[in-house]
């Protein structure tokens, strides 16, 4: 088992370690363990993690790049000592990624040859590679991703090709501007064109980077076409380097990514679930034929999640998930959370996010375990099929 340690701060051996893939059960599906990145802007994560009474296991955080700049200058962040100091999260790993699907949305129409454009609450921002590198250096993340021109699936071929050319050029710019020798992940785009994905991946694989960030997903492509696009990229990347994807959040999407050889994920899945009052409830040990008690039509949920705002929970004195040992499930009931949501108290979000994050991290733990035991494909199959069964049962029970 080969261990590769990336030079990350404060990590014990094995923080980013990648055992060899075990026997390949299917072509293009090396089994790799996935670590987990939490999603979204520092707001989101800060809202619980700066703060959560029972800290979630150390995991990586991806601050929203631009939103963290509103109201605080790079110089001040630098004076404070970087992100770890500012957020007082010393055990965590930070990665700086330009895209954040809540606060900084890539505006491919406005991106031009000078820089990438983002729509933020403070207006539209154009960021050039030099500015980007400067911002990143003030944050002192453990690793960072080069500036990319991300485009959605429906752009023209020409626009797509341009995005690849630009991304490669900016990658080279970022590399040459990287004076302090920090850890860089090269960005790979290519939209929904297999050829462009190949091209971009091959080019980036030739650069001197420590890992790969695969962008342009979660922006309009379907799950079906994505599988081929992912492998078009990962087939061209060296085995022993980490691969990180943004924008794949649904458990099925994560499983798809893992099957294609992705190691690190970030998305806004937990954030959006929490906003809507949804609590993750899927059992982490998924066995075929496990007939959970599905409360579907009344609860507005399914076997994966429940909506705590639903009136059936008004008097429910059980925790969100019985066996869960997160702070929220250990201390509070669905009835209390239901009340907090109904009266729009901010504690509702805090408590729910603690649970959802815990649950989601647990999912990744299960994935890693399945891979270690050589049972990933089975795990994936079971998971997807139980989900389908449940939806089928719901549809036919009406």
């Amino acid at each position, binding site marked *: 088992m080969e261990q590769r340690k990336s030079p990350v701060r404060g990590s014990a051996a094995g923080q980013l370690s990648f055992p060899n893939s075990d026997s390949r059960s299917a072509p293009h599906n090396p089994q790799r363990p996935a670590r987990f990145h939490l999603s979204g802007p520092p*707001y989101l994560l800060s*809202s619980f993690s700066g703060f959560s009474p029972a800290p979630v296991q150390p995991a990586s955080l991806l601050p929203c790049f631009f939103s963290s700049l509103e109201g*605080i200058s790079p110089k001040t962040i630098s004076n404070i000592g970087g992100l770890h100091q*500012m957020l007082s999260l010393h055990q965590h790993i930070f990665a700086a990624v330009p895209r954040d699907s809540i606060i900084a949305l890539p505006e491919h129409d406005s991106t031009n040859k000078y820089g990438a454009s983002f729509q933020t609450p403070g207006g539209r921002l154009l960021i050039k590679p030099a500015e980007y590198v400067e911002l990143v250096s003030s944050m002192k993340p453990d690793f960072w991703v080069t500036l990319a021109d991300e485009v959605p699936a429906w752009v023209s071929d020409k626009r797509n090709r341009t995005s690849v050319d630009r991304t490669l050029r900016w990658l080279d710019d970022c590399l040459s501007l990287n004076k302090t020798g920090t850890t860089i992940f090269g960005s790979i785009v290519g939209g929904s064109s297999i050829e462009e994905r190949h091209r971009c991946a091959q080019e980036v694989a030739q650069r001197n980077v420590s890992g790969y960030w695969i962008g342009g997903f979660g922006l309009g492509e379907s799950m079906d076409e994505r599988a081929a696009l992912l492998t078009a990229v990962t087939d061209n990347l060296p085995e022993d380097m980490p691969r990180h994807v943004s924008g794949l959040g649904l458990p099925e999407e994560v499983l798809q990514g893992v099957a294609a050889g992705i190691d690190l994920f970030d998305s806004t899945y937990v954030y959006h679930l929490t906003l809507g009052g949804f609590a993750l409830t899927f059992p982490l040990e998924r066995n075929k034929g496990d007939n959970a008690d599905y409360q579907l039509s009344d609860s507005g949920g399914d076997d994966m999640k429940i909506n705590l705002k639903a009136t059936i929970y008004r008097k429910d004195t059980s925790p969100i998930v019985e066996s869960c040992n997160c702070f929220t499930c250990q201390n509070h*009931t669905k009835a209390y959370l239901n009340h907090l949501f109904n009266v729009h108290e901010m*504690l509702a979000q805090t*408590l729910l996010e603690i649970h959802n994050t815990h649950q989601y991290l647990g999912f990744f733990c299960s994935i890693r375990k399945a891979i270690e035991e050589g049972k990933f494909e089975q795990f994936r199959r079971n998971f997807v099929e139980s989900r389908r069964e449940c939806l089928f049962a719901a549809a036919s029970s009406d």
Partner: protein
Amino acid sequence: MALKFEVLGRFNRARAAQLTLPHYLCQTPLFMPVGTQGTIKGLTKNQLEEIGCQIILGNTYHLALRPTSELIDELGGLHKFMNWPRALLTDSGGFQMVSLLHLADITEKGVTFQSPVDGKPMLLTPEESIQIQNRIGADIIMALDDVVRTTITGPRIEEAMYRTLRWIDRCIAAHKRPNEQNLFGIVQGGLDPVLRDICVRGLVERNLPGYAIGGLAGGEDKDSFWRVVAQCTAALPEDKPRYVMGVGYPLDIVVCSALGADMYDCVYPTRTARFGTALVPEGVLKLKHQAMANDIRPIDPMCECMVCKNYTRAYIHCLVTKDAMGSQLLSYHNLYYMMKLSRDLHSSIVEGRFPEFVCKFLQTMFPKGDVPEWVCNAMEVAGIDISSCCHEMKV
């Protein structure tokens, strides 16, 4: 009676005591944060324990509306519902009604108002208020009083005071759980010492577990405010807790404690947090100010709370208008400040250094010696020599 009140130390009128309630053993003087709807905005119960909160206040009006007192009762009471292991206090609901609702009207029967849910005419009687509070299950419950603002003058004040006395008997009669919940009476009477005196006597006759001084903290001038507190604390029994409702600013709490009060509640620390203001020994710090954007010091370098140990002013500044976490962090710090103030008041009295504590407090808050006159007057009555902090007196 479901409490024990034992005075552990004194300085003239000020006292430090141990207040034993069904759910918690408290030390007074103490400040109670307001957790209106069964939660203190955004803080978890662990954090509240960390901060040192002893009693939390819940608003009967809000809880009766959502999730309803019947539901709370069915699920085992508010302590269990919130999972708060320490003490709780509920108010009567009367004040909220009068201040939050249009067309609320007070008659002998009770408070009539329009239901905010469907506009139907409703009536909150003393009996109903107590029943709701019995269902909620707090350690201390408040009598329904006829509260008028001290800025009003005329016969209404006298009417309200006598009605409060009539209603206390109805509250006592309606109270089904005197062995688990302590019913406090509330002294009314506006700014009129004669009326206040009648009210105090009337309530003391009923031999209640504790007494509150109500109708203040509503815009009256400070000089009148402290005099009412002084009069009431002098007349209320020594061996029962005295609660000044709606107070307040740290300075007010120090003065009232010097005059012999024990318990306080106010939305100020948490509300001001949501507007970006932090409480510090010198007064307040406005985190929204541009000057904070590059200030990498903590809110208060001397403060030991989690917020001051981990975060800078600059970071909180950038959160404060945009993110819930900004107000959560400030609420945490502000409540920590209030709890520390409570602890310091208690321990300085017990350890026989109360006047020194008061002087240091005033010197820090008024470094130029410009202590307000009302404070000087109050301290004189309290028998505390603050000449070292007052500019006028120095000369």
